[in-house]
């Protein structure tokens, strides 16, 4: 690698080339760019690699550490496998946007200063919006717009915070902070918007299921996990994160239980899983941060696997609702098997990657004697098995026979799923390679007889609960209201009402003015006001003070005023 060249640039160049090339050459770009990036990620040494002057500060766009390389590695891995999954089915615009989006995530991973972090953060917001829009439906267009508004708002909040922090500390460096004043709170809130924390969690479940079957795979990986990395770097041990994380964990379970849209169930469970990580960052010990990082790594793989499985079903059947599918295991055995592996992994079943990573977080809570947190996380583990571990595969691949007999996954989709399914099991059986990549030394032993039995009881008996309570979980053609109801309905109606009131006020004022004009001295009236009361456009041409001004004239006057102001100010 050329010294000081950001690994993210390879994916940005890839995004550009995807647009410029055709057929096999394009496929080569889609698959080779992430692999080159992976190689470049591992060439980044510890510490500051490159600096760049900016105003009176110095930017550090590339800073290496084991934590940063860990996240960049899984982002590159995701870009490769996602590309393999999507390259024959997705539109080239989506593939290019996804490549740039992954580049943004890798840029964030190595950002050593807040300004660089912010720039890559906004690049991600931009290109992830494009991925949502590539869903191509009117629903995707509306969801993409709401998604963009939410992320631009989050970006503004983050920027306000970053400027405040720089003013206070005098340094741009990404370093641990505490949420103690306005600026640091703004940074924290800006990061939490991207982590889908309350009360804005709804953006995630709103937009991801509207993307194309391939687009939601890319979306699941980067935005929330970049936020997790930024939280680990900026707010390790921030106590408020424990509560935020627990809310997200429970929110994800409850809403996923109520949901009927297959991919929205999985979107809610992203919030649930990120909740585990946010909670771990709040605990903040070395073991907890290791757990958060390891869980993020494992989560990206099994969540992408789940969305690949769901995406394949959507791609083959065109159906998105649990009520429309079922019994698909007959003709889609590979997709079903990979979906089940992903479902077991997300539930933290022993011998899967979820078990070797998520239990670290519970263990960290226990070591800090956080009894309530530990117990709630255990209940949540049971709940994950309930809403994602069984509910997803059961309603899609089993339950009633929908009569659908679609073909199994195309070869590239099947191969991508097989790779990630194998990784889920590999990291569950032999987690040591992942443990070696973690930021702190690992002394944790995942497999101890009594603990494995405890988790098997917890999970299998929640499985029993699922099948006994099935009558209570009948699928309905509904959505569930979330906090976003406040702005999508209440605020929208208030806005419409306010607009209506302004219109009425204007009509009233115009009527009053027309009455007043009659009282004026005739020459004054001709200067100010219309000759013909019924035609306002006519009046605009005739009244000296009432007519439209050309924009050029207005600009000239503003320039004159500005020069005058400058003259007065400088003298």
């Amino acid at each position, binding site marked *: 690698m050329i010294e000081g060249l950001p690994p993210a640039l390879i994916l940005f160049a890839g995004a550009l080339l995807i647009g410029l090339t055709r057929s096999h050459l394009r496929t080569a770009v889609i698959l080779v760019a992430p692999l080159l990036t992976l190689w470049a990620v591992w060439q980044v040494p510890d510490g500051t690699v490159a600096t760049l002057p900016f105003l009176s500060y110095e930017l550090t766009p590339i800073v290496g550490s084991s934590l940063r390389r860990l996240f960049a590695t899984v982002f590159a891995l995701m870009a490769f496998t996602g590309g393999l999954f999507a390259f024959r089915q997705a539109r080239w615009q989506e593939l290019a946007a996804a490549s740039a989006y992954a580049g943004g995530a890798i840029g964030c991973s190595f950002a050593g200063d807040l300004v660089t972090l912010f720039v890559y953060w906004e690049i991600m917001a931009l290109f992830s919006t494009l991925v949502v829009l590539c869903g191509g439906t009117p629903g995707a267009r509306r969801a993409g717009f709401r998604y963009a508004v939410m992320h631009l708002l989050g970006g503004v909040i983050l920027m306000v915070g970053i400027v405040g922090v720089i003013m206070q500390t005098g340094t741009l460096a990404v370093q641990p902070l505490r949420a103690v004043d306005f600026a640091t709170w703004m940074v924290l809130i800006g990061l939490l918007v991207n982590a889908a924390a309350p009360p804005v969690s709804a953006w995630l479940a709103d937009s991801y299921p509207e993307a194309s079957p391939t687009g939601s795979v890319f979306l699941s990986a980067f935005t929330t996990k970049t936020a997790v990395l930024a939280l680990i770097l900026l707010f390790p041990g921030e106590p408020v994160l424990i509560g935020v994380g627990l809310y997200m964990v429970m929110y994800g379970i*409850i809403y996923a239980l109520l949901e009927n849209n297959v991919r929205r169930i999985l979107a809610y469970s992203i919030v649930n899983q990120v909740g585990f990580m946010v909670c771990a960052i709040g605990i903040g010990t070395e073991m907890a941060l290791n757990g958060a990082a390891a869980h993020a790594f494992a989560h990206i793989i099994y969540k992408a696997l789940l969305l690949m499985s769901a995406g394949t079903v959507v791609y083959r059947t065109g159906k998105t609702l649990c009520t429309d599918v079922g019994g698909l295991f007959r003709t889609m055995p590979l997709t079903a098997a990979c979906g089940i592996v992903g479902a077991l992994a997300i539930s933290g079943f022993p011998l899967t990657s979820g078990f070797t990573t998520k239990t670290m977080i519970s263990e960290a809570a226990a070591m800090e004697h956080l009894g309530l947190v530990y117990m709630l996380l255990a209940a949540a583990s049971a709940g994950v098995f309930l809403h994602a571990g069984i509910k997803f595969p059961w309603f899609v691949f089993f339950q009633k026979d929908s009569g659908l007999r679609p073909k199994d996954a195309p070869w590239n989709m099947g191969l991508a799923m097989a790779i990630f399914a194998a990784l889920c099991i590999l990291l569950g059986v032999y987690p040591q390679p992942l443990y070696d990549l973690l930021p702190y030394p690992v002394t944790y032993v995942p497999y101890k007889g009594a603990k494995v*039995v405890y988790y098997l*009881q917890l999970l299998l008996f*929640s499985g029993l609960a699922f099948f006994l309570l099935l009558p*209570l979980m009948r699928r309905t053609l509904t959505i569930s*209201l979330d906090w976003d109801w406040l702005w999508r309905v209440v605020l929208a109606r208030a806005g419409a009402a306010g607009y209506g009131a302004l219109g009425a006020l204007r009509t009233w004022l115009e009527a009053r003015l027309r009455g007043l004009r009659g009282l004026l001295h005739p020459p004054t009236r001709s200067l100010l006001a219309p000759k013909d009361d019924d035609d306002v456009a006519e009046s605009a041409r005739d009244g000296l003070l009432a007519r439209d001004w050309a924009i050029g004239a207005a600009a000239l006057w503003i320039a004159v005023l500005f020069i005058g102001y400058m003259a007065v100010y400088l003298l």
Partner: protein
Amino acid sequence: MTNPKDDHWLVRPASIRLLWLIFIAILLLTVGVQFLTGTDGHFGIDGWYAFGAVYGFLSCLIMVLAAKGLGFVLKRPDDYYDKDAGDD
């Protein structure tokens, strides 16, 4: 699909009965095996015999009921937001 024998092995009533029996056997096994492995508790209560089984079942029961209860308040027809969206 009139004859259940024609359908996949997994969905025949006899197989489902068999799968339930296997499942119950595994459940009993995970509880029984704690006599050998002992328990792994951090806070006393979670070191009780078969705590994982009871806690897993009960927390799922509570979560399903909580979701059901919240559903009465939060559920809307799935075209709820689209009604106002207009024809763009």
